[in-house]
């Protein structure tokens, strides 16, 4: 080990990102529906019950928007601006029948998740046959989803806030196999890079960074005394398939992921297919 680059690599690996816990403010929640006022109130009650362990009754102020409160996306954004909530609660395909098909979140949500800085919690559509069933049991198992777990402090902060005492928080990082294989294919064609070393170390390095941060989050949350169990999972795979499998196996009651990406206006590359296709599980989009 004799060059600047080699030592720099060791020090860069040693300079780990640590998780510092602080509880997010969730005192003001705005439930957005496209129902009539009376139905909205009923729906609000079931949603409040569903989140009774995390959005505690005495600490959370609830507001509700029903069908008559907004006619367009612009009006909805105006209402959000007016209420200034800490959290938006709604369901996919507002004011649309297309919730039956797994191809979009609907225009209201597409805009809402990108324009507002407020986290949006997307519930399964209330017209689903199993809708009431899905909101029967409060979420116990929450999964923070990331393709780049290292440094995802806000993701873990919100995910932990939605994990009730005694519940389980799963910090999940799935390294996309297709992308990694593509990089390794390119490396195989570069004579200056040792292919065997790259194959051996690249995946290990990617997963280690995620594991280290998740481990730091685990200790940070333990120190914060939230009374939740934290499990870290970092693996190579196919994101959509793996998450779908975990949800089908009943491992997850609530997914938490980032919906915004700095360099694009559309929804985060990984979040969009998950949010669109995983329709039976509530998803918190940050």
């Amino acid at each position, binding site marked *: 080990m004799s060059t600047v680059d080699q030592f720099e690599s*060791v020090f860069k690996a040693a300079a780990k990102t640590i998780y510092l816990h602080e509880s997010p403010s969730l005192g003001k929640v705005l439930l957005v529906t496209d129902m009539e006022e009376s139905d909205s109130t009923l729906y609000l009650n079931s949603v409040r019950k569903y989140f009774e362990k995390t959005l505690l009754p005495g600490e959370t102020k609830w507001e509700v928007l029903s069908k008559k409160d907004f006619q367009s996306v612009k009006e909805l954004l105006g209402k959000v601006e007016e209420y200034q909530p800490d959290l938006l609660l709604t369901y996919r395909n507002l004011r649309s029948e297309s919730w039956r098909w797994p191809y979009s979140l609907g225009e209201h949500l597409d805009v809402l998740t990108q324009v507002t800085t407020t986290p949006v919690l997307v519930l399964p559509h209330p017209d689903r046959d199993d809708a009431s069933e899905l909101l029967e049991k409060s979420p116990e198992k929450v999964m923070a989803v990331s393709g780049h777990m290292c440094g995802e402090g806000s993701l873990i902060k919100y995910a932990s806030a939605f994990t009730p005492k005694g519940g389980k928080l799963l910090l999940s990082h799935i390294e996309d196999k297709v992308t990694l294989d593509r990089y390794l294919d390119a490396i195989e064609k570069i004579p200056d890079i040792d292919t065997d070393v790259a194959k051996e170390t690249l995946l290990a390095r990617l997963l280690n960074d995620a594991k280290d941060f998740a481990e730091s989050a685990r200790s940070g949350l333990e120190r914060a005394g939230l009374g939740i169990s934290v499990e870290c999972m970092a693996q190579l795979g196919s994101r959509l398939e793996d998450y779908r499998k975990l949800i089908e196996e009943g491992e997850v009651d609530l997914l938490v992921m980032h919906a915004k990406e700095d360099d694009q206006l559309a929804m985060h590359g990984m979040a969009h297919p998950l949010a669109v296709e995983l329709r039976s599980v509530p998803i918190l989009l940050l």
Partner: protein
Amino acid sequence: MILCLALEEKIHAKKSLIVGLFSVVALFLGAWFNLLPFTDVSNLVIGGHKISLPVYIPGVDWEVIAIILGSSLFVDVTSKSGLFTWVAVKLTKLSSGDPLRLLILYGVMTVVFSAVLNNVTAMIIVGSLTGVSLKKLNQSEKLLGFLLVEGLLTNIGGLLTLISSVPNIIVGKTAGIEFIDFFLKAAPYVVIATVVTLWLGSRLFKIGSLKTEEEKTSAKNLVAGFDENEGIESPGFFRFGAIMTFVFIGTVAMTSQLPVVNELGLGFVALSFAGIMLVRYKSVADRFYKTIDWDLLFFFVCLFAVINVMEHARVLNLIGDWLMPIMGLGDSAGPAALLVASAAASSVTDNIPLAAMLAKILGAMPEISSNPDSPYWWAVIFGSNLGGNITPIGSASTLVSVTIIHKYGLKLSFAGFVKVALPYAIIQLALGVVYLLITT
């Protein structure tokens, strides 16, 4: 040859090749003019055995080569244990992310690593850590100041022990200075010069402490993320590396007192320790052979060959005559003038040929060669080490520091370096002259 070495960067040629070509010419001319002792070296009788050697072999100081080869291999293998990175990260955390404290700790670490390892390795370790840690602490604007001060401190640390730099090894060996005596003589100067350099660095580059509690908490949280164990592959080898480093330094310090070992010399000690460390990597030992600085080793071999020819051609006597006016200045002004002259010369060319040549010349003067405490030896040691701080090409470690500066996209030209470094170099040289006058 010296001019070509000074222009090494401009002519894009490795120093081993430059000196190698000159050694070919020198040997050819030496043979042509019947200056070389062919008869003596072809009829050597050692232990009753007649040995025939090529004429250029006995002129090489193989002890110096063995010390450099052995210690660089030892350091290279030991660094794989994660020991040096562990120390470096621990000190970073100890600073709590405060820039001034970081500068002091990195400065002291540079001096100690330069003394124990070598100044190039020290600069590589501390310089690369500085880049990473200042970026992490969002203090990248202070990088130039840090790297420059560290580069200057490598040459101060290089003065601390007999094996800290090549001029020390060459001059110390020729003068017969013991490891402990060398350390005791150089240590007070190194401490003073380090303190002054750090103080000046913090003033000139405006590196101060963090002011608000918020800044301090944020910096502390950021450095808390450093994991000192990241570079440790095996805890067992880490402990072994730490123990062996202490034993190595102890053995080197005690070589002249240890029976049997004192006859085998420092080169044997360095090579033996390198061999012991390599056992851990026995199946891939060749990987470490590839990382050896063969350019430096071939440079030495060829340089010794050139100097040997110059000795037979009485060129060194001639240069010695030129030095007589300096010697004639007396026991105070003479060493002071030699120190400054050595520093000036080694600022524009490699300090190793200069040290090797001056060591040969001083060694040929009976009144100096018989006295290891002669101030002239120390004048060459101080001058050849400190001269490296005047220009970026004055020493390999300052060159490494400039390389890292450029790697981070910071602009620093040759003249820019001289402009910034000159106040430090003048103060360090003035301190050196005063120290030499007081202590001899």
